[in-house]
């Protein structure tokens, strides 16, 4: 009986374990391996990691743009999530569907639509022109890249914020009011701290794809705003140097890991201080 159970258990979970090992863990191992070996001799080397040094400004730029985008996303998403969470249940469903819908539509074409909107002779500039303003330099700027990031990843911030805000216990707000908090005080002393988990998960969901994107910067940015993603992509698609590309990916992963660690630490402390 016991043995049959064990066989059954392995039969159910075994294939998954093997699949994830081969197609998730082994590839990660390969990234590590390539990052630490010489492309020609195949020997262990730190040259690839050292070689990243000249690209450090790009890493800095990527992190900076992604961080600004994440922050903007929080500021923009919060009121939206709040309004949705307060709406009548049937309306909430429709609004959430509207938030999710763009996430499923071709990200490439939507970004191209922004190109058409922001171009020097694009729709916005023509509109502004008819008002006597412009033409403004909109595209191929950092601002355009940030706009692209905010546009593409905003729903990933709205969703987790919405889900914490709907779970917020109304009685807590009432208790705060009962204890003498004004409307703004209630917001900053109760609602905002309680939505910290949503802010944190939303920030990771925006930051991670934003910091590693290579399409948005290519279309909306200038040659000066190449990001980590562009570098990694070109190591694999143009100048074929997977070792350098793997090294960059490794650094990117470690960077993200550290960022998430710091944020989780904050979240953890927050939890403790709340108790």
């Amino acid at each position, binding site marked *: 009986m016991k043995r049959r159970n064990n066989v*059954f*258990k*392995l039969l*159910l*979970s075994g*294939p*998954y374990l093997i*699949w*994830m*090992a*081969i*197609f*998730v863990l*082994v*590839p*990660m191992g*390969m*990234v590590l391996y390539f990052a630490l070996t010489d492309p020609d001799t195949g020997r262990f080397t730190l040259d690839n990691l050292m070689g990243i040094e000249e690209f450090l400004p790009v890493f800095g730029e990527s992190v900076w743009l992604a961080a600004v985008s994440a922050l903007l996303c929080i500021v*923009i998403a919060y*009121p*939206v999530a*709040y*309004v949705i969470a307060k709406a009548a249940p049937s309306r909430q*469903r429709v609004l959430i*569907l*509207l*938030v999710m*819908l*763009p996430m*499923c*539509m*071709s*990200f*490439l*074409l*939507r*970004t*191209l*639509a922004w190109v*058409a*909107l922001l171009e020097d*002779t*694009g*729709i916005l500039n023509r509109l502004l022109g008819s008002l006597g303003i412009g033409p403004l330099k909109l595209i191929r700027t950092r601002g355009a890249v940030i706009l692209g990031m905010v*546009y593409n990843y*905003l729903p990933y911030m709205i969703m987790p914020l919405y889900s914490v805000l709907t779970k917020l216990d109304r009685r807590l707000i009432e208790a705060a009011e009962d204890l003498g908090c004004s*409307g703004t005080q209630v917001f900053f002393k109760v609602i905002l701290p309680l939505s910290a988990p949503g802010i944190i998960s939303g920030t*990771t969901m925006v930051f*991670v794809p934003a910091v*590693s994107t*290579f399409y948005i910067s290519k*279309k909306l940015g200038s040659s000066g705003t190449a990001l980590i*993603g562009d570098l990694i992509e070109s190591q*694999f698609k143009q100048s074929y140097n997977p070792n350098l*590309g*793997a090294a960059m*990916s490794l650094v990117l*992963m470690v960077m*993200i890991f550290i960022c*998430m660690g710091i944020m989780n630490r904050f979240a953890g402390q927050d939890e403790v201080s709340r108790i």
Partner: protein
Amino acid sequence: MKRFNRIFTVAVFIFLYAPILLLVAASFSSGTSLSNFEGFTLSRYSELFSDKNMLGLLLNSLIVALISSVVASVFGTVSCFGIRRLGRRAQKTVMTVTNIPMTNPEIVTGISLALLFVFIGQMLKLKDVMGFWTLLIAHITFNLPYVILSVMPKLNQLDRHVGEAALDLGCTPIKAFFKVTLPEILPGIISGGLMAFTMSLDDFVISYFVYGPAFTTLPVEIYTYTKKPLPPKLYALFTVLFLAILLVMIVMNIVQARDDNRSRRNKNAKGEITLTRI
């Protein structure tokens, strides 16, 4: 403040939908560029439906998305049962690994799989390792977590006595699974599977690193198109897909709404029980 929030929300929705509306409008324009509207036409749609090449690419995308999401749904659901039978420690480890494709940047997932496939190709002395199978494997790999993460909570909610009650009333274990357990977790499987399907259909970053010349999906083709001016029939295709996905999401929404209502009622009933217990 309230009014400001509402107006702001409307503005955000306009921001989210402006490019989509632009693309939809472009599908009816006889101009060739996105930013120039000339007369109204439906010829983009007839061009689209007579373009075997484009439809072929769409078919490729659909095939990969469909097979990978169905495989991931079945495989993922079965695996959930297996994972739950593991020890607590092992379970935690498996879930951490499951989360890797979700939290890793897509580009890293893409290149890591590419490195693996190239390596396997060299080992097996295959000339063109990249193609349908590598795409399918990659898509199944990133679809699995969606299914697992939406089925697992359903399984955890399941009252284990319910399965036993079915056995007690004369079901064999297999019958009990299909008559009782499966209907209970089905909403989780469906929403996980649909999510996987849409993600897979639209995936570009991962596909871009593991596709081969023999088998390309639509998003990858669009990316490589971008060097030339885009053929306007793409906008027509976008509009069609937009409507299709809208439909899928409405279905998903209804499934979830039903499920939510039920679990809410369940929760109420349970609340009553705990109250009486105290």
